[in-house]
């Protein structure tokens, strides 16, 4: 048999623990492929979050650290400031990045910290069993919003790329999705850009990737992709929200 897809050098042999149909796996693969293509695996240092991707330190084939919940951008800052030649990235969920770690995220961006952030937005807390996330949609049913997210009581979702795009320190902020092969290809291009920016010394680069959580959304993998398209895409439009290189070129 001829393998259709080889495992990228950026991934170890360890088998993913992600649920069937979860797009965390695709996002890992994209990140790994980009690191391989940019030939940075021997100087990459990744920071894993607390969340479903907590074991990412076992999956990425480069030096890895497992940070406290939400603190990955601060840890990445310490690594990058100590070892400027390293290519430092964080991989974080929405609870990690936009709730408990909001301060660390915003200030790493404000400082223009020269790191790359892979932000997986699945609009829910996956690991802890499906609670409301800062990105859960109005009306979305979760374990802790059993009657739907009531914005009068639970407030509104945070659009991270739009928020960070207001900061001078943000070099690049793009929202992508991996729900179709075409979108996945665009996602990979954005991730590559976010790493290339770091190599070019451009500053803080974040790629927000809309992702599924079939398990906690209570949907089959196929229905989860449809739900993402029907609900997340309208609320979280894909696009580039800030691109300092483009601005410089204009």
């Amino acid at each position, binding site marked *: 048999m001829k393998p259709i897809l080889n495992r990228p050098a950026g991934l170890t042999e360890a088998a993913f623990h992600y649920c069937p149909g979860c797009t965390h796996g695709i996002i890992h693969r994209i990140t790994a492929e980009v690191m391989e293509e940019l030939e940075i695996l021997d100087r990459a240092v990744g920071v894993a979050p607390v969340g479903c991707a907590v074991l990412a330190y076992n999956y990425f*084939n480069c030096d890895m650290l497992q940070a406290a919940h939400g603190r990955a951008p*601060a840890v990445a800052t*310490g690594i990058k*400031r100590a070892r400027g030649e390293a290519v430092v990235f964080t991989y974080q969920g929405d609870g990690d990045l936009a709730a408990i770690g909001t301060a660390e995220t915003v200030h790493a961006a404000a400082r223009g910290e020269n790191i790359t952030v892979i932000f997986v937005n699945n609009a829910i807390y996956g690991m802890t069993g499906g609670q409301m996330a800062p990105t859960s949609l109005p009306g979305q049913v979760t374990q802790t919003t059993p009657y739907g997210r009531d914005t009068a009581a639970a407030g509104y979702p945070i659009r991270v790329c739009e928020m960070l795009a207001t900061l001078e320190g943000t070099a690049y902020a793009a929202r992508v999705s991996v729900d179709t092969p075409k979108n996945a290809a665009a996602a990979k291009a954005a991730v590559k850009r976010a790493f290339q920016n770091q190599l070019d010394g451009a500053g803080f680069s974040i790629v927000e990737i809309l992702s599924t959580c079939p398990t906690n959304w209570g949907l089959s993998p196929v229905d989860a992709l449809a739900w993402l398209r029907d609900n997340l895409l309208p609320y979280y439009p894909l696009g580039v929200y800030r691109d300092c290189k483009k601005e410089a070129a204009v």
Partner: protein
Amino acid sequence: MEKLMLKGNEAIAEAAITAGCLHFFGYPITPQTEVAAYMARKLPKIGGVYLQAESEVAAINMVIGAAAAGVRVMTSSSSPGISLKSEGLSYLSGCDLPAVIVNIQRGGPGLGGIQPSQSDYFQATRGSGHGDYHLIVLAPGTVQEIVDLTRRAFDLADKYRVGVMLLGDGVLGQMMEPAVIGEYTPAVPAKPWALTGASGRPKNIVNSLYLDPEELERTNFERFRKYEQIRRDEVLFEEYQTEDADLVLVGYGAPGRICRNAVAAARAEGLRAGLFRPVTLYPFPSEALKKLAERAKRFISVEMSMGQMVDDVRLAIECRRPVDTCLRTGGVIHTPAEILEKIRACAKEEGLI
């Protein structure tokens, strides 16, 4: 060697730099201000990194990142800030990373005050975050000792891959005294575990997660074997007129200094008083104190807190002798006279006068 007039807080910063610490992450708070200000002035000029973080939470996580990347790194704060760093200190310890943490204590609880205090003794010696871990805790009593212990802190951190806390108080931080900085060769071991990029070697992982209970238990046992060695090999203390003492004061930091005067005054009255000054608070010098209990009649724990170290004194002497306390708190500093008064009262109760 040349003696310099140095403020305690500045001595910490200068000593750290001479120990090879070129990375500092902090968040402003009184009364440690001069540590950070000194670093902000010096580090950028010598190729180092000073970074003012958005919070103490972020600062300690930056320390974690830099320590994991293999460099000597320090953060400095005061009581409320150390509370915020506690999460990070737990992760630092769970990851076996070396770093130096300064706490120039102020009064609490809550926002408390900004005057000197020792009410973070429990927080420092018990490991303030979650889980089974300790920091080595060093408590200097003079500016010279600040210099020496700051350097030692970095060497100990690297030797054992632990967090080392330099525990001071506002008195020590603000005090000016002559001290010798002098030459010093830091003892930096190789760090093959550091995250430097996996070039020419298998990948490294810095981690505190162990989903298998047996494995987590094993790592905790291993870490505590390390603490055992530290308890055996790294205990520091100073004794003053304890050889024949009936009454032994136990005090560290600023009260440790004031106790000296009280002991001298008591001796002038014919009372056989002495001072035992712990320099390492973790490991606590229990053995040496226990030995004193063979002869001494009574111990007096002198603390700027509601009485925290007194527990360690009682544990050390296994409650064989009465232990009194002489306590000020909230930022109030003992006078030698009130300590002397306490010595007299204890002497009376022991039938010595």
